[in-house]
């Protein structure tokens, strides 16, 4: 029995309420930050450029352009500070790690959007991660 995996599963947080996303998607991540003894929420919206790791150490990298300067943040999926993840746009990309966007500026840095016909989220009871595409292929 893989005890390391077992411990990871036992200590993992429930991330099923977050939207499913893949590299290239435009995502809004809401997380808590502590200032002194106060807590407040902050949202970071950007493109997912990398999802790496497995189990409890799985993490994603999100990038946005802020005032003309590229800003990246890395979040572990199991980070307790994460409060919400909303997938706003599916991106049409051809690779899993989008490092190439780091070298691009302006219009070139945009990621083309993948258009959906409809979301069948409501049919699948809370599992927002399922969508249909033009060809009606169910994508899980």
């Amino acid at each position, binding site marked *: *029995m893989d*005890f*390391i995996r*077992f*411990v*990871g599963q*036992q*200590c993992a*947080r429930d991330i099923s309420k977050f939207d499913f996303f893949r590299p290239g998607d435009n995502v809004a991540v809401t997380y*808590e930050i502590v200032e002194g003894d106060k807590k407040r929420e902050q949202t970071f919206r950007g493109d997912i450029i990398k999802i790496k790791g497995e*189990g*409890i*150490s799985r993490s994603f990298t999100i990038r946005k352009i802020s005032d003309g300067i590229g800003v990246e943040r890395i979040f*572990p999926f*199991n*980070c*307790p*500070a994460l409060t919400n993840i909303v997938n706003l746009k599916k991106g049409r990309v051809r690779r899993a790690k989008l490092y190439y966007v780091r070298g691009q500026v302006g219009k070139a840095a945009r990621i083309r959007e993948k258009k959906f016909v409809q979301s069948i989220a409501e049919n699948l009871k809370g599992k927002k991660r399922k969508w249909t595409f033009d060809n009606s292929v169910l994508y899980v």
Partner: protein
Amino acid sequence: MKGLLGRKVGMTSIYNAAGQSVGCTVIELGPCVVTQVKSTDTDGYNSLQIGFAEAKEKNTTQPLKGHFKKANTTPKRRVQEFRDFNIDKQLGDTITVVDIFAEGDAVTVVGVSKGKGFQGGVKRYGFAGVGDQTHGQHNRLRSPGSVGASSYPSKVFKGQRMAGRTGGDQVTVTKLKVVKIFAEQNLIVVKGAIPGHKNSFVTVKKK
């Protein structure tokens, strides 16, 4: 001192209540079998001898086979004695993690560190090496430098730290906090690192 014998499973990280990622070590601890009970009347002191991990019958000597038979158990690979264990267990009883440890305890872990082979002074004793890559160092960046004075004492003192076989020593790590316990799987998760490689035997003790 109470304690149990176990096996290092490996390391992982866990998030604590404050949301910080904490590096932890998973140890498969016990169940251990009481193989001998010593008391003040018979032996002059109180202690408990416990065994851990199944051993092959053919690899166990006759005397040890008899010893384990007395405790009505199978041969064990690891046997260790703990003085003043102070737990209500008889010969042949099984001790599990929850009998001794609880979450939040500070424990001591003893194990044998990973063998590193023949290593130089920089790795073995933390020597600083000679300068940087500049200052005319041709090929002795990690050399130990001087090992003593000249005509007096005309010898190198015993105990002078030099290159040599590194690792493979018994190492004790104290005050490790127990982060989590999984009683059913006999697992204990402690904060921080412990000596040894994966699957190496360790002793976990508690005051």
